[in-house]
């Protein structure tokens, strides 16, 4: 195929380049703003940073909420991903055995949940009955299995030749031993991909936390940020909550604090992003699986 640059190529590159700039600009602006000036409510537009002020971050560290939220989020992400991977890989392996009696029934029952759900209130009452309020596991257990990822893993395990397991079977190994000794080690690429996608989901989890955590000390970073957004926008309406925050934040520009929390919440995603990128094609398959 031709290699030389022609006019349409250049036009397309310019269009995509401009779109990329538009897409990237909000993030750039947020980072700049988090290092912004501490000039009360007003700030100058900074397209190119001319201050490097850490006071927003210093405030967040001294105030403690965001730091606590960071640790909660880290706990939920690590524990949650472990629970996700345990339930998903064990179940996917069992369901990958076509000869297992009852397999089709279970599979259909699982797929049915993608078509129909009880809705918010019945789920809310169920979780409440389990006594998970003000318990960090409320952000882990109700999302312990993602059906898309489960079926993807089931299909992957199902495609592994049975001969891989036969010698172990002859030696008298049971299915659990085979799963951990043979199947999981040869499936590392898919396990890594799904674990990463699960980890991103857990890091971004806020919904069940918002519904069931009344104690704001248990808030993950996402909810600390949500609180900051709603409260600081109240600041402009001169509400009492806003005034309280205004006095606490003293001279720091409130948008700088908000931006600083956004940056802290986005950094872990940026760290794993290069590894995520490796699994893009697998990840997108998760959105369009044929079971």
């Amino acid at each position: 195929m031709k290699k030389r640059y022609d006019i349409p190529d250049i036009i397309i590159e310019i269009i995509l380049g401009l779109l990329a700039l538009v897409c990237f600009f909000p993030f750039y602006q947020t980072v700049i703003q988090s290092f912004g000036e501490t000039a009360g409510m007003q700030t100058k537009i900074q397209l190119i940073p001319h201050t490097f002020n850490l006071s927003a971050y210093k405030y967040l560290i001294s105030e403690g909420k965001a730091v606590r939220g960071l640790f909660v989020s880290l706990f939920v992400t690590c524990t949650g991903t472990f629970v996700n991977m345990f339930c998903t890989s064990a179940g996917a392996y069992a369901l990958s055995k076509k000869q297992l009696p009852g397999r089709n029934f279970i599979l259909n029952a699982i797929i049915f949940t993608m078509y129909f759900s009880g809705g918010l209130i019945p789920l809310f009452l169920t979780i409440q009955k389990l006594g998970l309020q003000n318990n960090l596991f409320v952000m882990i257990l109700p999302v312990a299995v993602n059906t898309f990822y489960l079926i993807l893993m089931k299909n992957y395990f199902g495609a592994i030749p049975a001969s891989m397991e036969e010698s172990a079977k002859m030696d008298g190994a049971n299915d659990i031993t085979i799963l951990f000794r043979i199947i999981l080690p040869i499936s590392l690429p898919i396990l890594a991909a799904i674990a990463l996608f699960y980890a991103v989901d857990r890091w971004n989890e806020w919904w069940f936390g918002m519904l069931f955590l009344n104690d704001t000390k248990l808030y993950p970073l996402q909810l600390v940020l949500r609180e900051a957004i709603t409260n600081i926008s109240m600041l402009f309406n001169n509400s009492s909550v806003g005034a309280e925050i205004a006095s606490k934040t003293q001279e720091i520009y409130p948008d700088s604090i908000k931006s600083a929390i956004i940056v802290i919440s986005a950094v872990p995603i940026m760290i794993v992003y290069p590894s995520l990128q490796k699994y893009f094609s697998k990840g997108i398959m998760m959105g369009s699986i044929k079971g």
Partner: protein
Amino acid sequence: MYMPDSKIKGRNTAAGVFNRYKYLYLLLIPLAVYYIIFCYLPMYGIVLAFKSFDYSKGIIGSPWNNFQNFRDVFSNPGFWTAFRNTMIISLGRLVIEFPIPIILALLFDEISKRKFSRVFQTIFTFPHFLSWIILSGIIITLLGNNGIVNQLLALCGLPKNSVLMNGKSFLGLLFVSNIWKEAGWSTIIYLAAISGINPELYEAADIDGADRFQKMCVITLPAIKNTVVILLLLAVGNMMNGGFDQIFNLYNPAVYSTSDILDTFVYRSAFTDATGFGFSTTVGFMKSIVNFILLFGADRIAKVLGNEGVF
């Protein structure tokens, strides 16, 4: 299965079968517990749609109320607003958002040999992995009273705008911001389909003197047609979901009239306005039913068209 199994005594009795597969069933336990507790038990809670929920009596003890919830829902103007908004927003997403990744994929394909291609893709895909809380935080800061948009407007001597407070412009913001978050990610599936095209087709077209636009129309577009159809059906099947995370984190009372969707209506009627759990369950139940019909229909159509189905 390995042969010696056939020698095991009583292998065809229930106990024998269970014994043979007991470890696999053991591995299924976490999965079964999850789906029963968090998916099937709540389905039982749907009976609340037919009851007046009394907190002290629980789901079972609450009295039946002869479809009163349904009459309440149908006579509630907020419900109809939410229903209409859900349809409008979903249709808007189909018309405005759906074609963007296809166009992006075609553009990317044209410059796939250039070095910037990967950089652009990296930038476009990144927002997909951030939560709507983070993205709405960024959007609200940018468009807020002291945000850069309003400062630029002020610099030009223009009046401050309030995209977030105006119903119509808020709808536009919903579409644009969702394109920002998801278009790059959705492009990948089309690029995967394009990469599966046999290069000889393009070479043959080159020999016949086809230009790049002709090649796109005759080779690339037909090759991704199936993917487009499947994703379109999936989008239609999901029409009852207007995008809860996005709207919930961006909206405010000033734009309820155009952007309150069924999911946000259910949430507020249960937890903010305290209209009653029976009422909210009923709205959720009706949404689930329509959702089921749409998804099931989409799946059937996909199968009729010779695909493997949506799921």
